[in-house]
């Protein structure tokens, strides 16, 4: 059992992080905070991938003399792409927030909802 926990603690903390981010995204009404939460959520997923690809006593997958055990490069590649996707999403989301603020005068979802309803 102890071994089991030791073997998985990394995943569990990562999942905890993920859920924190996810919670921020779906429970908060402030758009900027939501975007921060979204990033936390995504970064945690990245950590999950990297954890999956980690090999004990391995090293970064850059072939160098003197090392034989390398961590799995594939998750790294995937996550590089995912990070880029993440930043693209973030910038787009922020641009939208800026426009929303210009149009509505607020970045709180509740208030925007009220303004839409009152029309």
């Amino acid at each position, binding site marked *: 059992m102890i071994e089991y926990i030791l073997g998985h603690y990394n995943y569990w903390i990562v999942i905890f992080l993920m859920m924190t981010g996810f919670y921020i995204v779906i429970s908060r009404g402030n758009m900027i905070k939501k975007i921060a939460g979204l990033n936390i959520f995504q970064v945690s997923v990245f950590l999950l991938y990297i954890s999956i690809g980690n090999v004990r006593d391995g*090293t*970064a997958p*850059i072939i*160098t003399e*003197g*090392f034989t055990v390398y961590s799995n490069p594939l998750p790294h590649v995937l996550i590089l792409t995912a990070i880029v996707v993440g930043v693209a999403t973030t910038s787009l989301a922020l641009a939208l927030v800026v426009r929303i603020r210009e149009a509505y005068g607020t970045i709180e979802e509740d208030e925007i909802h009220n303004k839409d309803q009152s029309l």
Partner: protein
Amino acid sequence: MMFTVAMLAILITMGLALARALLGPTVYDRIAAVNMFGTKTVLLIAVFAFLSGRTDLLDIAIIYALINFIGVIAVLKLVEQGNFHTDGNNDKADTK
């Protein structure tokens, strides 16, 4: 071994800086703490590079230092001016 010790020391320092960043109380405290935290991360990576014997990881430390700096500047610009588009050079008179 020595790297391990150094690493631990850095970790403790980071923890303290993090605590300050969390506690505040002013924005400036946080900025300062973030700056310090960033510096310590740079060191952490540098030490880790030696610890694991991969000195090519030092590139990462460099970029950390860089990004940290720019981040802090951006924060300051925001705190001081409230926007990012004001011309920086228009009040040089200050120093003349």
